[in-house]
């Protein structure tokens, strides 16, 4: 399987789509930029014409630019540069499909942004098939000024889903850890939440001691993480909207690897209970009832829930080297081994359909890559080509995995499609970044 990917033509199109957003203050070092570096199929040619503006003064927002950047960053689309557009229609009656066939685009997006009143805008867009001249979709979305960027992401999501059959994830968020090493030898650890395109990054926790293992609640409202701020590990659950947080586990020894249950009511976690031996537990966040699921002298850690909440998958070295096992989420169940191929398989994460695991897969010779393991067959498919790849996390559509890797000695983020064909690098402007976790689809009111 690796050979297959090695043969894939490496093409760095070298376009930094979204770079530093200057003047972002405290989070300047948190900014990311996405570069598509590899794809094996011809990306779909599409033209996204700058939207018309009906309102006072300058346009309130360049929706088309964000839609263009989103679609290009996915690696599945090749948007036509605005400079190459023969015409710039904003209404259906202005479209001459022959113009677009000549420049060989398959699909065309036009739209308008209308100022309806103070802080009230309507975005209208239509997606056409250039060959047939048919309208594929057309929508009208209303938004306040601060939501125009989110509106652009929603438009990109709708276009992406219509043309690929896969729901878009441009409206989702990611969380990750950054570490800044200062000249005086001190370190700064930050937990950051950003839009899926790396923009709009904000620091939600900041500490001179390590922060690690962030994880989203299923409703996207809370993040659990490990902090060493008391010089011992403790698990916190922080509400994003308010910034308030609760210390949910600070037991003697290790408090690690939190994972919310699919209903958000429980946390799976790793504890050593002061005895030095790591086992998997569940903690009911409402009743505080703690239940032990594994009891073995081995390192049992990195729990991950199956989407149906029935099983907890975890890493254990009970057979010598680290491999993935699973145990029923109700205490008393039998532990089963899941992975057999490869010298090291760790930190499992379940695909949204529950059929596959993304794992850190050791190939020997100090090479660790992200692999997709089919749970039924146990067969691993290596998706990445780094040397120290880690921390895979599925996008909620199951089509992409974000992970951490190294580039020029620095920690960077990267993503791969789950078929391994599209690879993107998500560079950070400064410092090391790692442990990316993809948030769920946004829900109304979040």
């Amino acid at each position, binding site marked *: 399987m690796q050979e297959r990917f090695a043969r894939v033509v490496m093409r760095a199109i070298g376009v930094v789509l979204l770079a530093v957003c200057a003047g972002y203050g405290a989070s300047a070092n948190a900014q990311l930029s996405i570069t598509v570096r590899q794809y094996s199929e011809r990306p779909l040619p599409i033209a996204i014409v700058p939207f018309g503006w009906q309102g006072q003064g300058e346009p309130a927002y360049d929706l088309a630019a964000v839609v263009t950047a989103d679609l290009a960053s996915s690696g599945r689309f090749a948007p036509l540069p605005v400079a190459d557009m023969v015409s710039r229609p904003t209404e259906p009656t202005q479209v001459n499909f022959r113009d677009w066939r000549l420049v060989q685009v398959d699909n065309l997006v036009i739209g308008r942004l209308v100022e309806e009143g103070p802080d009230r805008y309507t975005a209208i867009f239509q997606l056409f098939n250039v060959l047939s001249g048919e309208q594929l979709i057309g929508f009208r979305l209303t938004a306040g000024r601060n939501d125009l960027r989110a509106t652009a992401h929603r438009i990109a999501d709708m276009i992406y889903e219509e043309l690929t059959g896969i729901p878009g994830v441009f409206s989702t968020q990611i969380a990750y850890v950054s570490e800044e*090493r200062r000249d005086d030898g001190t*370190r700064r650890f930050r937990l950051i939440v950003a839009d899926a395109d790396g923009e709009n990054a904000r620091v939600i926790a900041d500490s001179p001691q*390590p922060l*690690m*293992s962030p994880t989203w609640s299923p409703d996207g409202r809370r993040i659990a993480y490990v902090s*060493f701020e008391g*010089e*011992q*590990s403790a698990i916190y659950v922080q509400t994003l909207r308010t910034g308030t947080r609760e210390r949910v586990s600070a037991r003697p*020894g*290790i408090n*690690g*690897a939190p994972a919310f249950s699919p209903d958000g009511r429980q946390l799976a976690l*790793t504890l*050593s209970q002061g005895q*030095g031996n*790591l086992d998997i537990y569940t903690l009911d966040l409402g009743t505080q009832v703690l239940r032990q699921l594994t009891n073995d002298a081995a*390192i049992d*850690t*990195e729990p991950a829930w199956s989407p149906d909440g029935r099983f907890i998958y975890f*890493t254990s*070295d009970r057979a010598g*080297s*680290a491999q993935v096992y699973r145990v029923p989420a109700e205490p008393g169940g039998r532990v089963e081994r899941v992975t057999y191929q490869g010298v*090291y398989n*760790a*930190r499992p994460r379940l695909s949204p359909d529950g059929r596959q695991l993304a794992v*850190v897969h*050791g190939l020997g010779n*100090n090479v*660790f890559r992200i692999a997709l393991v089919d749970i039924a067959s146990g067969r691993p498919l290596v998706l990445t080509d780094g*040397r*120290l790849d*880690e*921390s895979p996390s599925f996008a909620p559509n199951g089509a992409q995995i974000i992970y951490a890797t*190294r580039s020029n*000695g620095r920690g960077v983020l990267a993503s791969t499609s789950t078929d391994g064909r599209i690879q993107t690098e998500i560079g950070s402007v400064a410092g090391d970044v790692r*442990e990316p976790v993809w948030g769920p689809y946004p829900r109304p009111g979040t």
Partner: protein
Amino acid sequence: MIRHSLVLTFLAALLAAGCGNRQNTLPDAAEGAEAGGGFEDASTTGVGGGSGIQESALEAEQRRLMEQLVVYFEYDSAEIRPEFNQMLAAHGRYLAANPNVSVRLEGHADERGSREYNIGLGERRAQAVRRVLALQGASPEQLSTVSYGEERPAVLGSDEEAWRLNRRVELVYRR
């Protein structure tokens, strides 16, 4: 024998205290005096600070061992390598003779593999050191552990040398 090693330990404590100038250091005399420490601290200031005592070979050896504050490990292993036995024995005797002193054992791993697994590995290493010190007579109250996994490397870099130096337990003395 016990008596002999207690005396030796006591001397080692005095001598070690006299050269406490590093960050992760043994409790030094001044600190002890401020804290209203016992007899050992008071005499440490007078004797250890001067150079009146002729150091014996044994004492020198004990002092040398006490200056070592890091135990290194093989990849994915928490086994104490034989070359660290003497050093840990010296620290264990020191702790047994100084029940008011405590040491925090900070376990670490190299960057290979997943992060939470490496927390487990660091903990396992810290526990291995803890057991050896306990066998030498240190009491449970004197020994605490923490694992930082790969989160706080001693050395940056992704090569064998950096990895070797990062797979470690650091002994951090506290009072």
